[in-house]
């Protein structure tokens, strides 16, 4: 074909290549080299030192233990509300409430959970006071597990809920007709098609817990974890970048293994050809039981967060318990905190805006490639790799790679880090949505004189708006709550809320921590609300004759 100039698809691909070359490949190679080279010579010294000391095995073992325990508990707990939503005759509105409330913790940074747990279950905690007894010792394994469970419950719920939605409920009826007992029928038609999703849920929450820094930052106590070890090697009192790099690599390995395992497991997902809408059998006992259990789970999660809204409004927790808005006014008159909030907002908006643009561009070339069959490989590979790299490792890699460059201590590096870190899910979301659009639009429009860009603007984009909005809010919310990567990259000049919370911990400024957390929550709710409103308005317009 007579193309003298370079196509826009190629430009997008070249840009994607450069982006991930500089901000994924280069940092990862840097961190790998850092762990194997000393003064330009290859060495195993850093790994040797690490492994000669038993403490790294202990940290690794602790991390595996708490993450695995959290993975099991989370998956079991998440199954209950998912079952209530998909397999009971509970009122539809109630189901909506359940699925909204379960995922609420996603809108807060993990570091907040840690402090909320301290103020709930600690010696002076709200729940401890109410029950007049401290249920668990939170500084240690138990506290960590509670934190991780709250953190990963929403993700696990979404995974299970999604697969359950695709299970054909008619099979339950068939199984009962064939004479299966209730229990047998439950295993054959609910659990069996869910097996691989349950496994994915376990692995996913294991990986998230294994690589999270927010919760251990508050609750690790004397428990040595890989995440805290990595933080201390890099930003502790005696920073050792080489050993830190080696710890990063150790953290990376299980994460890579998990993602590979998940992609294998996803192939075993049972897919029903057709989902028949069918009335579920009447069973009030089942409905009430699962409704109540879901309510209890949600209440437990919410009760932990209650303190966030309580503590800042009390004069001095827990000694002078009278209502006061003094802390709030203090905080809002503190210009440094306001500017931290503004910084966070700026980073989140930039991440969401640019991230959406990049995800859209790359998904367009890979999902709607027409005759360019091989075009999808680059963004697909980038998505796979970014998915395997924990935020902490990415943060450390950026710190090592861009220290001293013009990117050091800039907002740009925070934004880029967020986009690369969170690229995978929105990319896959966008791609699958674009793949569902009619494949002949581009050819048809081209025959009517459109260039590719014109077709994208006039036809594809108006039909992809709802997914674009979803992608935008995904990036925004995650940029607001992320701790792990940015903790290594935020400077005094570019301080954002989650990093500030970590700093405030040193001064035990919990009022400020909680108020900042509330700000994050409100902002995230507002953005989600706006996105939903916008989508609803568009939808209504579309339905009009």
């Amino acid at each position: 074909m007579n193309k003298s100039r370079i196509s826009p698809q190629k430009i997008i691909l070249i840009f994607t290549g450069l982006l991930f070359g500089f901000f994924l490949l280069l940092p990862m190679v840097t961190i790998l080299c850092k762990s194997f080279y000393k003064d330009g010579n290859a060495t195993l010294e850093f790994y040797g030192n690490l492994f000669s000391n038993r403490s790294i095995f202990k940290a690794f073992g602790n991390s595996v233990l708490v993450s695995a325990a959290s993975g099991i508990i989370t998956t079991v707990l998440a199954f209950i509300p998912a079952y209530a939503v998909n397999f009971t005759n509970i009122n539809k509105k109630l189901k909506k409430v359940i699925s909204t409330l379960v995922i609420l913790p996603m809108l807060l940074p993990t570091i907040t959970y840690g402090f909320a747990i301290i103020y709930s279950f600690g010696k002076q905690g709200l729940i401890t006071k109410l029950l007049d007894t401290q249920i668990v010792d939170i500084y240690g394994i138990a506290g960590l597990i509670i934190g991780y469970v709250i953190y990963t419950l929403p993700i696990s719920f979404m995974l299970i809920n999604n697969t359950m939605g695709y299970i054909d409920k008619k099979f339950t009826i068939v199984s009962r007709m064939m004479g299966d007992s209730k229990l047998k029928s439950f295993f054959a038609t609910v659990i069996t098609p869910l097996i691989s999703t349950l496994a994915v849920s376990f692995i996913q929450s294991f990986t998230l817990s294994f690589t999270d820094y927010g919760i251990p930052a508050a609750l690790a106590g004397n428990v040595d974890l890989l995440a805290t070890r990595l933080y201390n090697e890099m930003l502790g009192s005696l920073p050792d970048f080489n050993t830190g790099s080696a710890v990063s690599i150790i953290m990376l390995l299980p994460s890579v293994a998990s993602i590979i395992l998940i992609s294998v497991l996803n192939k075993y997902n049972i897919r029903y050809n057709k989902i028949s809408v069918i009335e579920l059998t009447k069973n009030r006992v089942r409905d009430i039981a699962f409704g109540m259990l879901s309510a209890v789970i949600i209440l437990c999660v919410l009760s932990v967060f209650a303190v966030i809204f309580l503590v800042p409004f009390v004069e001095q927790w827990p000694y002078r318990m009278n209502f006061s808005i003094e802390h709030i006014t203090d905080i809002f008159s503190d210009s440094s905190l306001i500017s931290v909030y503004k910084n966070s907002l700026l980073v989140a908006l930039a991440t969401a805006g640019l991230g959406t643009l990049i995800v859209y561009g790359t998904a367009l070339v890979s999902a709607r490639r027409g005759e360019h069959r091989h075009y999808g490989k680059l963004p697909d590979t980038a998505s796979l790799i970014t998915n395997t790299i924990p935020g902490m490792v990415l943060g450390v890699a950026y710190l090592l790679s861009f220290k001293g460059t013009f990117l050091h201590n800039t907002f740009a590096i925070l934004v880029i880090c967020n986009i690369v870190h969170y690229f995978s899910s929105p990319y896959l979301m966008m791609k699958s949505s674009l793949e569902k659009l009619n494949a002949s639009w581009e050819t048809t429009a081209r025959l009517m004189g459109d260039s590719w860009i014109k077709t994208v603007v006039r036809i594809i984009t108006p039909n992809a708006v709802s997914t674009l909005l979803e992608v935008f809010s995904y990036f925004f919310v995650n940029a607001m709550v992320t701790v792990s990567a940015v903790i290594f990259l935020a400077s005094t000049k570019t301080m954002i809320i989650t990093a500030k919370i970590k700093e405030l911990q040193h001064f035990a400024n919990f009022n400020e921590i909680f108020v900042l957390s509330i700000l994050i929550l409100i902002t995230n709710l507002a953005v989600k609300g706006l996105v939903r409103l916008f989508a609803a308005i568009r939808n209504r317009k579309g339905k009009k004759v």
Partner: protein
Amino acid sequence: MLELKNIEKSFDNVNVLNHVNFSVEDGEIVSILGSSGSGKTTLLNIILGITQPDSGEIFFDTHDITKVSMENRGFNIVFQDYALFPNLNAYENIVYGLRNKPNISTPGEVQELIELLGLKEHLNKNIEQLSGGQKQRVALARTLVMKPKILLLDEPLSALDGVIKESIKDKIKQIAKEYHLTTIIVTHDPEEALSLSDKVMIINGGTILQYAKPDEIINSPSDSFVTEFILRQLEIKRNNILALFGGNKTVAAV
């Protein structure tokens, strides 16, 4: 006149089209009839210009257009799934091409097309509010606004039911006649092909088995495939229908 000479095409070393030679006269309706995997869609794509042949030449009015890009050939297509743009209403879909080439059809000509296809009362409707037949007619109108030199139709009737099918058939014939428009239709349905076209090309395994007028195909099938698969199918259908009407189950084969 469209002429294809010695067209060859393989995908991943699998031969899809084999020495394909044929020509289509101006204003003719030609159907390419074959089952899935016969190579009919590849042939359509090669005529349209989406796919390049490995070897062979394509001539249009004696010009070699083998290397001419899809958009410069001046042909146009209605896809099987219509590919209507759901963010635009029926009218906006019909006049989409005028955004890029404002003078290709006059407002009068557009109105004429709308009348001809009976779309007047549907112009402000969203795409999802249209029935299958209406969608097909909107897609036809949108393509005809572009005044294509050749109209290609990919399985134009497969998504439609009974009576609508017949009325769209009539419209296609009417358009070809009124605009003296060369029309090439791809289909897997023998009844459709034989009742709609001036000439039918039967293709199997990438080779043309017979290219002739419908009555020639019926009366002197060139190949056992044509007899066994194409004519046999029509006979069973005919017998079933005759049985329904008169109970005369012993109609001899023609």
